[in-house]
């Protein structure tokens, strides 16, 4: 699971159990460092960590459904690292976002390491079992983690820059470009003949 994609052959001599164990211990320690109570409203927590948690959850669902379990594990490792950083040198163990992240780690780990996950879940103040927990639905707004700058050209000249989500669809980006006040001004009522969209970076309007 940790070693490679399921379809690959594995030479077990190359797989280090101690590496996996170290990771599991590291994940488990998070549960001891959470100082908030169960049920604390996560919305009041640190935004950066909340985004990392939401992104991990969304990605993990996709990765499991496409059988890319090793990548899923790698994403959980990243979340463990981010949470550790938040506890040690960031917002600290009392922040509700830290609890949310640690609970998410426990739930995700229950797919691959049920014993560690149960221990974490219990230390986080929950009744057993994590196997009966619900998969948390990430807040869609938290999934818009970054924006990128899309350049809008009219007749080959840059007329506007838009801050958009990296996941923006072609249609949404085109609509946003055509609605931009600067673009409207440069179009000056002329008929748009063609719009070339390369989301999320470029919109080229031909009149």
């Amino acid at each position: 699971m940790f070693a490679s994609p399921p379809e690959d052959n594995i030479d077990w001599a190359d797989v280090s159990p101690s590496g996996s164990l170290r990771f599991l211990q590291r994940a488990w320690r998070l549960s001891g460092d959470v100082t908030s109570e169960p049920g604390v409203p996560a919305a009041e927590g640190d935004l950066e960590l909340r985004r990392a948690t939401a992104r991990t959850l969304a990605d993990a669902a996709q990765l499991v459904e496409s059988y890319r379990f090793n990548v899923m594990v790698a994403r959980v490792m990243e979340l463990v690292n981010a949470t550790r950083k938040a506890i040690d040198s960031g917002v600290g163990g009392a922040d509700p976002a830290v609890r949310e992240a640690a609970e998410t780690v426990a739930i995700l780990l229950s797919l691959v390491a049920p014993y560690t996950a149960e221990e974490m879940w219990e230390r986080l103040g929950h009744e057993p079992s994590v196997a009966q927990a619900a998969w948390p639905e990430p807040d869609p707004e938290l999934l818009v983690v970054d924006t990128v700058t899309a350049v809008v050209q009219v007749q080959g000249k840059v007329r506007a820059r838009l801050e958009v989500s990296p996941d923006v669809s072609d249609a949404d980006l085109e609509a946003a470009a055509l609605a931009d006040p600067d673009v409207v001004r440069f179009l000056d009522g002329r008929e748009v003949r063609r719009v070339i969209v390369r989301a999320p970076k470029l919109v080229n309007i031909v009149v």
Partner: protein
Amino acid sequence: MSEQEQASYDVHAVEAKWQPVWERLDAFRADDAAVLSGRREKRYALTMFPYPSGDLHMGHAEVLALHDVIARYWRLRGHEVLNPMGWDSFGLPAENAAIRNDSHPATYTYANIETQLESMKRYGLAFDWSRRLHTSDPEYYKWTQWLFLKFREQGLAYRKNSPVNWCPQDQTVLANEQVLADGTCERCGAEVTKKELTQWYFRTTAYAQELYDCLDQLQETWIGKVVNAQRNWIGRSEGAHVEFPVDGHEPIRVFTTRPDTLFGATFMVVAADAKLAAELVSDEQRPAYESYLAETRKASDIDRLATDRPKTGVFLGVHATNPVTGEQIPVWAADYVLADYGTGAIMAVPGQDQRDWDFAKAHDLPVVRTVQPPADWEGEAYVGSGPAINSANDEVSLDGLDVDEAKRTIIGWLEEKGLGTGTVNYRLRDWLLSRQRYWGAPIPIIHCPVDGEVPVPEDQLPVELPELRGSDLKPRAPRRWARRRSGSTSAARPAVGRRSATPTRWTRSSTPRGTSSGTCRRRTTPRRSTPPWPRRGGRWTSTSGATSTRCCTCSTPGSSPRCCATWAWSTGTSRSPRTCPRARSSTRAAR
């Protein structure tokens, strides 16, 4: 690094702690009511059932862990996940162990199952243990037998006489894959021979095209090499059946994927062990043929198909007419053609087939090229594409046509002349399911001397195995089982002949367990502890309702007379053995 960062936990203690918690919570049971009421969506997660030949190994652990991720994921997503586990628990290893240890195969089987169960629980797998099954339980193989009868009703299970790999040591049929490259049995090392046996088959070939087409649906989601292996296994090829007239004999019918090369067919090869070869051989050549046949029977199919094998053979002393050239071409017997593939005979085109080329060179037979090789071609047989050459008679010419066009043209001409037909052939063969030993699901067919094959009525399933152990199971004890039948207690049991056919474990591997687990009585039955083997009159028998029919299932392939036609049934109170009324007289005669 914080203080906490140093902390750790005791892995073994944690394992011991959680297993009882999961059991107490019944955490992985799929709730039928939640699904039936529409409250929760359902999912079915099914992984391979292990064969209980010892404890689990790393390969099991890997596969089970991967499966567990999926099952747990859907459970967290709010679905009721039907995630059963079972054991593919019939098979020869248990029988051999029983002979070694002078015990019952069930002892070995069910002890290993318990060992594997403990391992699975230690792995923390999310199986619904209320839906556990073993294919060797009568409650389960009742459904194996029921499915068999349904298949037979549809003509999808049938018996035929066919040469099979036979291990004289294990006294059993082997799949091609169980014969090693040196022609020995993978289990015991004995030299494998060929034997003509009447055996049960599943008609998998009826689904060859459907299976082939359905692989398209897996193209996106499955690993490419697996899908391709499946395609090659089915081995679809388009071609033609062509008839080569023989004086004083039926025409020899061959299948060829390259009817365009018919003008280059300079000799024919019949599988040495095909009936056809024995029919065709001339009196002068018969002694030579028969000594060659004896050699052939020792070789495995896999060996025989190896391209680097020396091309041996013997001339049968007869000629056939090439239908397009009108020439008389010699007919040979050889081992590189298999008796049960296609028609057991081929037209040999040495110009376009390397094995035919090797054979022609070894036996000084003529070669005619019918596809133009490239200018710089220095090889032997040319299997590539190119324009046809040397391919014309008075009525039809293929010269200059490419391979596909030449195929279409010659098939049209053959069909018009009534000399052949265009057709599709598959490498896939019907699935041999009989195994000539004890520890398998008895085939629920009575071999009645009067009525022939009589299916056991469905309401009298399962046909249970007789109780045999230790040396009773030894190969080369041909009459022992038949003797058991005459005992007062065993008379009511299936009088399974020494060579009665029980399916190989592949049969159960391909049984849709979902169906069976859904009706398995096990759920309402507390798990037994020890001994795990369903004792007669114990809890197991009582869960299977009234004791069912015991029938003769002996098929005694290759021997006659049929060893018995006794069948008996229980009326609930009495269990007196009965004899099939219509067969009574002949049964007595047989004794």
